């Protein structure tokens, strides 16, 4: 691609509006062309500025809650849980601390007691001497739902993988079933890679029966679809 041809395409390049092959050709040329570099910086500044023209919108409380959860904090109780990645590993024997240990996936898998459930799911869990638990539900298709935390604690860390990202009008809802009453543990959606991780303000019992359903956004008071998972600790 010639110098002049690249110049003609720079505005479209700055907007990300070129096909992949043209984009690559422009990028290759730009590596060694100072003149186009300067022009491109101005064009990109314009593109960034275009983003400021959109009218502001009020985020929902659910979105604000999701941002709080990113930092490991539970809305309304900022002292309850520290961010997962900021937690130091728990000292052996530590009973109750914000220093929850994020169990390595392999260690958790090695520790699980596998039980075959009628729906064809494999599930298992462990309750160690330090009263930390990690409970894993694994589907034949590769989907995984894991709960971890400290027994009796007021927060549970949930990790999901291998579950399709739902469209905007649907959410995954995780339930505890207590005396035939369905209580919401939390509501979430997986990312484009089919994963989600976060904390919910919920105290799991040691013999908890849990379920996962797909519900209309923003969630339901009671399940409206058959559970993808229903199992007991």
């Amino acid at each position: 691609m010639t110098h002049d041809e690249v110049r003609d395409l720079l505005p479209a390049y700055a907007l990300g509006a070129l096909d992949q092959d043209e984009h690559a050709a422009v990028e290759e040329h730009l590596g060694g062309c100072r003149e186009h570099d300067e022009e491109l910086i101005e064009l990109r500044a314009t593109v960034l500025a275009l983003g400021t023209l959109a009218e502001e919108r009020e985020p929902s409380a659910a979105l604000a809650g999701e941002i709080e959860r990113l930092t490991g904090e539970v809305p309304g109780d900022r002292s309850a849980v520290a961010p997962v990645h900021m937690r130091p590993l728990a000292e052996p024997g530590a009973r109750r601390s914000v220093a929850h240990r994020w169990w390595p996936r392999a260690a958790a898998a090695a520790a699980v007691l596998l039980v075959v459930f009628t729906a064809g799911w494999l599930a298992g869990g462990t309750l160690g001497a330090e009263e930390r638990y990690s409970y894993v539900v694994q589907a034949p298709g590769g989907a995984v739902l894991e709960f971890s935390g400290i027994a009796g604690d007021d927060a549970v860390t949930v990790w999901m993988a291998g579950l399709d990202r739902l469209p905007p009008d649907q959410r995954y809802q995780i339930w505890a079933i207590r005396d035939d009453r369905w209580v919401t543990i939390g509501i979430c959606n997986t990312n484009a890679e089919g994963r989600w991780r976060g904390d919910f303000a919920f105290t799991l019992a040691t013999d908890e029966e849990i379920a996962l359903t797909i519900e209309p956004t923003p969630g339901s008071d009671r399940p409206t679809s058959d559970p993808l998972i229903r199992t007991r600790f």
Partner: protein
Amino acid sequence: MRDTSSEQVRFATRLQARDGAALRELFEREGRRALGLAYRVLGDQAAAEDAVQEAFAQLWERADRLDPAGGRIESLLMTMVYRRAIDLARARRNGAITLPPPDMLPHVDEQAAAVLDRVVELLSSDGLRRKLRAALHALPEEQRVVVEHAYFEGLTLREIAERERLPLGTVKSRLRLAMEKLTAAMRTQTLS
């Protein structure tokens, strides 16, 4: 006059240290604008909130790799929100297959953000919006439409040509003329 660059570096340093309060401050300060941009691209509140959430998650995941002196976090965040929204919009159009918008050369975006910062310092954010909106409205309609298709819908030149039933060369030249005018308006502000 406040030393905004020092404040920006301090704020970026807090994020880099994974200070959750800093991320919440960023959301409180920029959440509405980020959501507005994602909504402008996607036209759907729930999908727009997904894009914003994912951009914040991506920023938080990579916070320890931030360069505190590398420019405004706000510009980086808005770029991430925009790219995620465009990705979702393209995924919708093309079914399950999605091509993420190509990344620009990193040093270009850093310097572009610095140029934008200078304009904001001169005009304020509201002033920048007024000037840019005026420049956009001053464009001939056929040029403005092409910019809006490319920016707010994430259409490629080829897709715009198909949508508008125009020759590809016409779309290319309209987009180039429009962007040159908008960029000239920005340049006037930085030089005046």
